[in-house]
């Protein structure tokens, strides 16, 4: 039996350069980056991608106070996605709704906050918050969303480092195909900019971007790239089986065509282009496509000197010179690295290409690194495509987890 066809019917997002898909897309086509200066505890003023959505649009003040930033971002994105989907959510059986949210990490923010808090009381742990445990459990963002929406079906997070955004979608598609749920809210979120540890960790790794102009700091593929801009953000989708979406006359953004997830098993932090290429090839095969059928490759590249070259090596190995209609781009050049949200946000930024046949560029490339000079790389200005039938989205993470997701134009 052929597996059920799974389609995207709604998108809700907050990115450093937009709080709706329309605003985000417009800024990607207009070259508007969203990186700014940001004060980090113990470290001073650094660069980060900061979201400026209104948490009180869907939460009470008390919910914002008691909950986490990742929970708040998740609730905003979930509510926006549901509104966008046009589904009559009140009428859906809530035990048949699943919430699957990818996270790079969760709990660091609240733990750091509490240690800072008790430092003001001579480290006396009787001042440690009773909210610490519900705030730091790994399922927190999904759990807060289930509370806000009254969803009683499965709601949990998927920890997959910076591959997590793709993983949320992949897992949701699998659960829909298994018949575990009938409606899925899925994607990825990140609150990482509120923990100093991630900044300090990348700085100690010599992988934290610096630039006198914040908006030029995230520069994948440029010779002068010097590391990652850390960002917060979120992007959640509504996924449904095709027949359900069609039965209610839903707008369809695209169809999940194929995916693959694998592991490098080679290093804690260094990518492995052989395994990356394998992940991309297997995703294309899973979709029943060939490399020539892929018209946009959205790269994971984070602007680390070595990582970009290794991903380019993987893409070159798969697509070579024989894919004249394949464009390659990068979204982190606009918004930095949104960690667990990255894959989901970067896919969303490209989905409108099915309709407008325009490929957003990678910006901030003043001097292209020859080792990153891929055929079809869209630099600094959008490109017009003859056709966009399939978008391939790469997201890779530490400990060597790779995820590739392919979405194709919906054709009934």
């Amino acid at each position, binding site marked *: 039996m052929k597996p059920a066809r799974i389609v995207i019917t709604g998108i809700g997002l907050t990115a450093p350069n937009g709080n709706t898909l329309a605003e985000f897309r417009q800024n990607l086509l207009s070259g508007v980056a969203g990186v700014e200066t940001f004060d980090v505890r113990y470290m001073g003023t650094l660069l980060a991608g900061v979201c400026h959505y209104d948490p009180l649009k869907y939460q009470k*003040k*008390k919910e914002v106070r*008691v909950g986490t930033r990742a929970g708040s971002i998740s609730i905003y994105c979930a509510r926006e996605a549901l509104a966008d989907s046009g589904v009559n959510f009140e009428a859906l059986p809530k035990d048949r709704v699943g919430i699957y949210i990818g996270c790079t990490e969760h709990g660091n923010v609240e733990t750091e906050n509490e240690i800072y808090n008790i430092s003001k*009381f001579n480290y006396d742990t*009787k*001042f440690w918050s*009773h909210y610490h445990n519900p705030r730091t459990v790994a399922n927190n963002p999904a759990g807060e969303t289930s509370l806000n929406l009254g969803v009683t079906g499965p709601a949990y997070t998927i920890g997959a480092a910076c591959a997590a955004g793709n993983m949320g979608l992949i897992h949701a598609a699998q659960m829909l195909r298994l018949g575990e749920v009938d409606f899925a809210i899925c994607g990825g979120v990140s609150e990482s900019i509120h923990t100093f540890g991630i900044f300090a960790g990348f700085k100690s790794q010599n992988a934290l971007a610096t630039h006198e102009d914040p908006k030029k700091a995230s520069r994948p593929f440029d010779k002068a790239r010097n590391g990652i801009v850390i960002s917060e953000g979120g992007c959640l989708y509504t996924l449904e089986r095709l027949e359900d979406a069609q039965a209610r006359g839903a707008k369809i953004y695209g169809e999940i065509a194929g995916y693959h997830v694998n592991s490098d098993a080679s290093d804690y932090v260094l990518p492995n282009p052989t395994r990356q290429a394998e992940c991309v090839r297997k995703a294309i095969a899973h979709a029943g496509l060939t490399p020539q059928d892929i018209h946009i490759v959205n790269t994971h590249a984070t602007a680390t000197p070595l990582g970009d070259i290794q991903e380019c090596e993987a893409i070159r190995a798969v697509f070579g010179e024989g894919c004249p209609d394949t464009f390659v781009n990068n979204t982190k050049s606009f918004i930095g690295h949104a960690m667990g949200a990255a894959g989901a946000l970067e896919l969303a930024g490209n989905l409108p290409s099915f309709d407008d046949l325009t490929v957003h560029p990678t910006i901030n490339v003043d001097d292209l690194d020859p080792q990153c000079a891929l055929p079809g790389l869209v630099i600094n200005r959008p490109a017009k495509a003859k056709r966009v039938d399939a978008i391939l989205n790469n997201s890779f993470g530490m400990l060597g987890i790779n995820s590739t997701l392919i979405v194709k134009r919906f054709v009934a």
Partner: protein
Amino acid sequence: MTKDQCKQVVLDIIADIAPDEDLSNLKPDVRLRDQLQLDSMDFLDIVMELRKRHGIEVPEADYMQLASLDSCAEYLTPKFTALGK
């Protein structure tokens, strides 16, 4: 500290932990939980804020003393006085 001042201390804490609530018409002799959306974690917040802001400890056996503004004032005012406040 007077009992009215003590009630204001508690009201200031509640204003922070229940920011969506209208506190202008709270009846001092009625249970707070009957007038506001407060759960057990919120009451732990009141206990924590009394500890943090004023150095006052409320043992678990005495939590019932925080039921209403009047009972808060009866219970807490001597504690503030004992601390010289």
